[in-house]
């Protein structure tokens, strides 16, 4: 049998042993996973980012404007000593600042405005009937928004509306839970398929 499959199969069983409880076999597999996954990520980052986007274009391609991000990156090394650690705040400031600059139009456009537009539907159908689904969506959005209203205690009318909002929330959480169960079960099916057919050769 392929040595790779044997190793993969044994490691699979080692991780599953955590279901019983934390144990030395699991701990060994866990430590290996952590180490190998950091190593993998390190190599990929080196190859994709530092080599391909910084050192190659800077030192062989002569793209001098890359000196700015290079300098910013080096400032991160300030963290190695408590005296210089404040230097690392500058590259972090660039990340956080530009992240905020991207987030504002993105959050407003795609999250808020687009979701608002999609909520608006005529409440009467073309044949003159009440558009029940459209009304439910509108009421759902309004009630749930009321649940997220923080400036006043949820009493009286606001309280009743917000409470209806929690029902909508619960319906949503229930539906999501249901769909996610499907997904998680598929993953287990995949693992069991591997164990049964590749590792133990019980099926094909």
């Amino acid at each position, binding site marked *: 049998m392929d040595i790779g499959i044997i190793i993969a199969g044994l490691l699979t069983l080692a991780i599953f042993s955590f279901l019983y409880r934390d144990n030395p076999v699991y701990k060994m597999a866990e430590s290996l996973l952590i180490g190998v996954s950091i190593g993998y990520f390190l190599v990929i980052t080196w190859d994709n980012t530092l080599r391909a986007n910084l050192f190659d274009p800077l030192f062989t391609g002569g793209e001098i404007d890359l000196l700015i991000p290079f300098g910013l990156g080096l400032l991160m090394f300030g963290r190695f000593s408590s005296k210089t650690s404040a230097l690392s705040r500058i590259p972090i*400031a660039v990340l956080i600042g530009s992240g905020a600059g991207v987030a504002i139009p993105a959050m407003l456009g795609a999250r808020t405005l687009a979701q608002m537009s999609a909520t608006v539907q005529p409440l009467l159908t073309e044949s003159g009937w009440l558009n029940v689904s459209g009304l439910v969506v509108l009421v759902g959005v309004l009630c749930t928004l009321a649940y997220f209203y923080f400036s006043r205690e949820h009493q009286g009318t606001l309280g009743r509306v917000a409470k209806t909002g929690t029902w909508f929330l*619960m319906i949503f959480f229930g539906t999501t839970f249901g769909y996610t169960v499907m997904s998680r079960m598929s993953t287990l099916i995949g693992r069991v398929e591997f164990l049964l057919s590749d590792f133990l050769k019980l099926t094909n």
Partner: protein
Amino acid sequence: MRRRVPQLVCGLFGLLIFTLHFLTSDQAHRTYRLILDDYYQIVFAFALLVGVVSFIRVNLKAVERGKDRPYRIVSLLGLLLMPVLAMGWGIGGDSPFLWVFDNVQVPMQATVFALLAFYVASASFRGFRARSLPATVLLLSALLTLLSRSDLGGFMAEYITPVADWVRYNPSMSARRAILIGIGLGSLTTSLRVILGIERTWLGGGK
């Protein structure tokens, strides 16, 4: 000085990126890409080196103290192994680097993921109690979805699935919309405060 400079840098970059979002000129687009793509990645890569050094330090200290020694050594060896393989034989198609990834890392990760199926079952057993009206609504909605997506044929396909789909596209979706709008607003104001320099926690707190 230790606070002012980063705060200023942060505000300027925020404003710059925000403005660039609305511009169409090639120069604007190029700058936007340069900052978001190259700056982000390169700074992140250096931060990763800092993170890895800290990881190694924490583990070496533990090895010295003798706490969980074998496990810590395995972690460190695993971390060392990947760059060594990559430097020796490359990372392409049939390299040992990818072999370790495929036969060690991927199966373990997929199995940790598969643990979720068991946790879903135990959480369903433990957490889905009809304690109150909202909890009952949660439970019924979950049951409805699960039933509708099981292939039980006949009755299910004809009656339960349409009802479940209606619930999914209407009441359920409306709640998610409102959550999205709310998160959008929360993110928006947080980002504004970051750019305006009112939000300073990331500098270690601003009080």
